[in-house]
């Protein structure tokens, strides 16, 4: 019996911990093209901002592989999987055979089809090496253009601002974080970013990137030219399925898995950003590229690889994003749709915003800005599909809590039972 995991991030760690819950003996091999001890990718913005050192980016302690009897093969790319022979072939020619295989290769950046995008000083913002490369050019008073006012784009903006870089962020949409924000939320963020000296250009599309070898400016379709010393691309990510494309493994946008994280090939599992598992809110398979989902999918896969029959069918998107002066959290549904009622409360004086998405008798999504302390209770209302009809009118209270739930429900949730 041998376990092989391709990938070395959150889903892989979840799988190791899941396997070791049940099987303390059989060897685990972790293969990753990155040369680093398992680290947390979202921390790259904190690394770039100088708020964490590389040593504090490690997702588990230095003894993690040792304690869990894991053989890490790091800095070597998995080239190919022979599903019939049950072997992973590495770029250096080594063949690693497996009894149970987990594919946890994560996501990769989407490169927008812009002329000049191959020039020097243009960076993605996904991996530690991206942050290390940006660190070299992001000197105080240098000029940066960030393409994409997305979650990761804005985290790059934040880090660059904290490094004293002059930042312009460009997005083709008419608002910031268009997938999660409406106009009210976007204007709150806009105001805050401008206070920090960030230039935000919305409804702006990039014609091309100018410069000889290195990028020196961004030319917009409307003729404006934004000079820059470097560019960060944050146009989104997609499932990193390169390794298994064109094989008999079933792929849609990501690798299709059932609620036990099994793919269509026996003994092959997938988890994390590369997987397309069951999304509890959308009630279908969908990518759910967030850490908690990656961990739980990985853990479930690991337990099942070790012989358990665990199911994980509660995946949904949730994100927390401190952005300079704002605290932003969101979960579940984030745009209006059929059968969904939206309730929004904007408090200008307190600079807070709360927005709830309700479907039938259930909360199915929310967005909170600044007043976020009770967010987890809302998340749990979503997760447990609790009937909120008797206290729906209380949801937006500043002091919302279990106290506004009917006694029977409160007892069930927080009292001893």
């Amino acid at each position, binding site marked *: 019996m041998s376990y092989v995991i391709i990938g070395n991030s959150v889903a892989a760690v*979840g799988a190791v911990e899941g396997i070791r819950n049940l099987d303390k003996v059989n060897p685990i091999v972790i293969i990753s093209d990155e040369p680093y001890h398992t680290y*947390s990718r*979202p*921390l790259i913005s*904190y690394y770039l901002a100088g*708020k*964490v050192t590389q040593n*504090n*980016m*490690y*997702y*588990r302690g230095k003894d993690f592989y040792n304690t869990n009897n894991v053989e890490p093969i790091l800095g070597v790319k998995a080239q190919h999987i022979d599903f019939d022979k049950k072997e992973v072939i590495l770029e250096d020619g080594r063949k690693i055979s497996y009894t149970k295989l987990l594919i946890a290769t994560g996501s990769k950046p989407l490169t927008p089809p812009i002329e000049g995008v191959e020039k020097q000083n243009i960076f993605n913002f996904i991996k530690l090496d991206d942050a290390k490369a940006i660190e070299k050019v992001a000197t105080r008073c240098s000029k940066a253009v960030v393409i994409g006012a997305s979650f990761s784009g804005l985290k790059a903006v934040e880090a660059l601002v904290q490094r004293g870089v002059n930042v312009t962020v460009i997005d083709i949409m008419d608002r910031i974080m268009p997938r999660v924000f409406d106009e009210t939320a976007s204007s709150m963020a806009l105001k805050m970013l401008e206070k920090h000296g960030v230039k935000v250009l919305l409804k702006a599309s990039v014609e091309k990137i100018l410069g000889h070898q290195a990028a020196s400016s961004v030319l917009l379709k409307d003729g404006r030219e934004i000079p820059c010393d470097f560019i960060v691309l944050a146009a989104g990510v997609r499932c990193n399925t390169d390794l298994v494309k064109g094989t008999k493994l079933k792929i849609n946008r990501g690798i299709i898995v059932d609620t036990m994280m099994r793919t269509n090939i026996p003994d092959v599992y997938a988890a994390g950003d590369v997987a397309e598992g069951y999304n509890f809110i959308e009630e279908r398979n969908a990518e759910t590229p967030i*850490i*908690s989902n990656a*961990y*739980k999918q990985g*853990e479930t896969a690991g337990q099942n690889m070790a012989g358990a029959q665990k199911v994980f069918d509660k995946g949904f998107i*949730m*994100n*927390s*994003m*401190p952005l300079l002066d704002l*605290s932003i*959290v969101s*979960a579940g549904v984030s745009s209006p749709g059929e059968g969904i009622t939206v309730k929004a409360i904007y408090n200008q004086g307190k600079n807070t915003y709360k927005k709830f998405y309700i479907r039938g008798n259930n909360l199915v999504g929310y967005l909170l800005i600044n007043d*976020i*302390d*009770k*967010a*987890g*209770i809302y*998340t*749990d209302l979503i*997760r447990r599909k609790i009937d909120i009809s008797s206290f729906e009118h209380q949801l937006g209270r500043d*002091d919302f*809590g*279990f*106290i*506004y739930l009917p006694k029977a429900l409160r007892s069930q*949730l*927080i*009292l*001893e039972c």
Partner: protein
Amino acid sequence: MDKSNITAPKRIYAKEDVCIGCRLCEIHCIAAHSKYRHDLIKTFKKLSKRPLPRIVVEEDVPLSFGLQCRHCDDPECVKACITGAMQKDPKTGLVINDTERCIGCWTCILACPYGVIRRDYTNKKVASKCDFCLESGLEPACVKNCPNEALYIKNTIKYYDL
């Protein structure tokens, strides 16, 4: 297997029928986690920056109760944590945040089903939560000092396979 030396995870529960909303639990929690450990007068007279209370008191008069971390068997906050700072200690069963590694991203706040993790901006931005008064011999100050015995500890018997 001898399980006598394994600490069972313990939980604090509230009796909402007897809680009078005096918030002394908060006061004692603050003092228990201040540098003048448990000294109320020094904590409140000498410190300009005091720790946040790690118990949340919910109140809608006349109803009130205190709520703190349940040190869940299957903690959502630990799985959601993006740094690995939030961990469940396999020996004590307690969910503890390593404030050295916490970067204040508030993902645990988003994940906690009880809404009992707070944003602490006092020094470095970190998530603040109940540690079951680990450094005071696992005798939670909130429980010990509640004048109406509205908080109590219950051992939930679940042994870990250590």
